[in-house]
């Protein structure tokens, strides 16, 4: 008997069984009227929006709490002329004290902090002496491009390879892929990136070593600029893609293997459908929803991986910004980066959840 499941924030809960109408053990599922389906989808969407809103609020609160709860004083070193982190410019010190506002009661601090965040004010960078928001605005697009490329590429490759491997499971290619993907999953992104640099930029120098553009280059045409940027993107994107591929590949492969023996697959084959149709319309489709769930989880990993990869290639995104901020212990920048990256991940996850609600035939269907 098939049980209808409703996905509520990542947990599968049963929502009543299908009714056995024929009395011989088969189940008959009837689609709910369109309007009802719409309504349930709308409710799922509203729920997701509230959930992610609450999560964002929690992130903001955590950022507020960390400097106040951790041992040590973030300001002491800045006011000590013998310390390497000493800030000599009194105006910058002034802004820094205002950022923390530690002389006021905690509730007032929290209220002021929330007010600033709502206005989009992320504080003042101590080391660069400029608003954190401007710094992030300059760096975020590069990270988004890198992450977007890697997520799209790794999804496409792992989906196709996963179905292919499941189709001929146990074969030489399947086994090689499983071993390679398990290995890729084990390697941290910075190690992958280092190995790629060594192979494709040092031993066989066909791609640039670092950066996002050739320094001081003057471009003859906009196309030349695009080509240059794309050439610089290849290695970082490849490193991140390799890091993100393994999980998705293994998931698609195992899900697909699970359905290959199902009766409807035998029927579809008996009908004489082409292999292509069998693979993608009948078998692969089942992997789509779990795939989306994993993709959502991976967006968070992609953020971390991107930070690592960028700091190998000195790619001018958030990772490089974070790397420099760590050196200078520039806390407002680190906190701003965390907030921005967390918001990005939450937005992408929300979108994925909405797509999920639309794709999943079980949401809003009654039996």
């Amino acid at each position, binding site marked *: 008997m098939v049980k209808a499941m409703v996905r509520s924030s990542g947990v599968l809960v049963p929502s009543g069984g299908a009714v056995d109408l024929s009395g011989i053990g088969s189940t008959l599922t009837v689609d709910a009227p369109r309007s009802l389906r719409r309504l349930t989808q709308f409710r799922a969407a509203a729920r997701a929006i509230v959930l992610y809103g609450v999560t964002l609020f929690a992130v903001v609160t955590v950022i507020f709490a960390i400097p106040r709860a951790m041992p040590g004083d973030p300001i002491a070193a800045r006011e000590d002329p013998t310390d390497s982190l000493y800030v000599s410019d009194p105006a910058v010190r002034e802004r820094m004290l205002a950022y923390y506002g530690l002389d006021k009661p905690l509730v007032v601090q929290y209220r002021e902090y929330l007010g600033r965040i709502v206005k989009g004010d992320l504080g003042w960078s101590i080391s660069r002496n400029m608003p954190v928001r401007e710094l992030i605005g300059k760096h975020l697009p590069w990270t988004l491009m890198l992450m977007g490329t890697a997520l799209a590429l790794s999804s496409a490759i792992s989906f196709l390879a996963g179905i292919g491997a499941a189709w001929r499971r146990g074969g030489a290619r399947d086994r090689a892929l499983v071993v390679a993907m398990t290995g890729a999953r084990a390697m941290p992104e910075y190690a992958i990136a280092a190995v790629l640099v060594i192979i494709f930029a040092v031993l066989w120098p066909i791609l640039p070593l670092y950066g996002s553009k050739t320094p001081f280059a003057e471009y003859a045409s906009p196309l030349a600029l695009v080509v240059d940027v794309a050439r610089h993107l290849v290695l970082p994107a490849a490193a991140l893609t390799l890091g993100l591929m393994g999980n998705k590949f293994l998931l698609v492969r*195992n899900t697909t293997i699970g359905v290959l023996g199902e009766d409807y697959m035998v029927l579809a084959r008996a009908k004489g459908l082409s292999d292509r149709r069998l693979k993608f319309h009948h078998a692969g489709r089942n992997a789509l929803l779990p795939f989306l769930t994993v993709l959502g989880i991976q967006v968070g990993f992609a953020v971390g991986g991107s930070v690592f990869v960028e700091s190998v290639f000195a790619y001018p995104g958030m990772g490089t910004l974070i790397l420099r901020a760590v050196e200078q212990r520039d806390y407002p920048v680190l906190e701003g980066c965390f907030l921005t990256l967390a918001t990005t991940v939450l937005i992408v996850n929300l979108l994925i959840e909405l797509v999920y609600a639309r794709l999943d035939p079980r949401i809003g269907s009654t039996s």
Partner: protein
Amino acid sequence: MTATIAPTVEPAQDETPAAAIPRRRRRPGIGWLGIFFLAVFVGMALFAPRLAGYRVTELAGEPLESPGPGHLLGTNLVGQDVASQIVYGARMSLFMAIVAGGLTVFVGALVGMIAGWAGGRTDAVLMRVVDLFLVIPSLPLLIVLGAYAGPSMTAIAVIVAATAWPPSARVIRSQVLSLRRRAHLQASVGFGARNTHVLRRHVMPEIGLIAAASFVGAAGRAVMMEAGLAFLGLGDPTRASWGRLMRDALDFDALFNTSAWQWWLLPPAVCITFFLLGLTFLGVALEQRINPRLARHATAHRRPR
């Protein structure tokens, strides 16, 4: 909302019955390979003072000496012995694997057992917290925490565990949920056993294998995160770490103009990869023990066409 969840019965999905699959000769599994890799690094960590010719910070030779009899992996920019740093770096990774990995599973198991056993509202609240943690990107959070917590080894282990426990909590909760319905547990409750007794006597032994698999995974993530934080400059500066070794190498501008990358950048990258491969292989083997269906899929023969 009731917290009972129907046990999912997996339908038999292999078209060939298990008996029909010709039995292969048993090969030493992938798990043993993993244990071998790990044993090498454990040995390295245990005998670090004997294996390493120099102390980590000692200026042992000229800057950037090539590998030779005195320095097996050459020296870095200030003349420290790279091989010694690698050997001592194994200690850092092993410490993270055991302490941070163990702490992660401890917290995860505690939360998972409470959520799964208590059910109801407790379960719902705890699982919302887990969901919340799972969508927040952990590396940027770790960076902020690490920047404030300071660079001590223990502090790093604690913050890694603090951000990494939710997946193991979820796995262990679902195991506890399936245990709840077993007759001997029901009987134990019926005889008036306290919650702590049931959890300690009946639940804990049953989640051992799952917790072990969970530990292997958590240990891998912890090793990766410590090396990553050290790579970003947030590690303990007084101790050798493979991540910091890679960072130092990459910070040297002319790294790729010389051949120094061969003995300075590559060895730590290879070490961390093989350490993590060891843990992954061990994890795969454990998962196959827990869920034999996975193993059958992995080695199933080609479908007859």
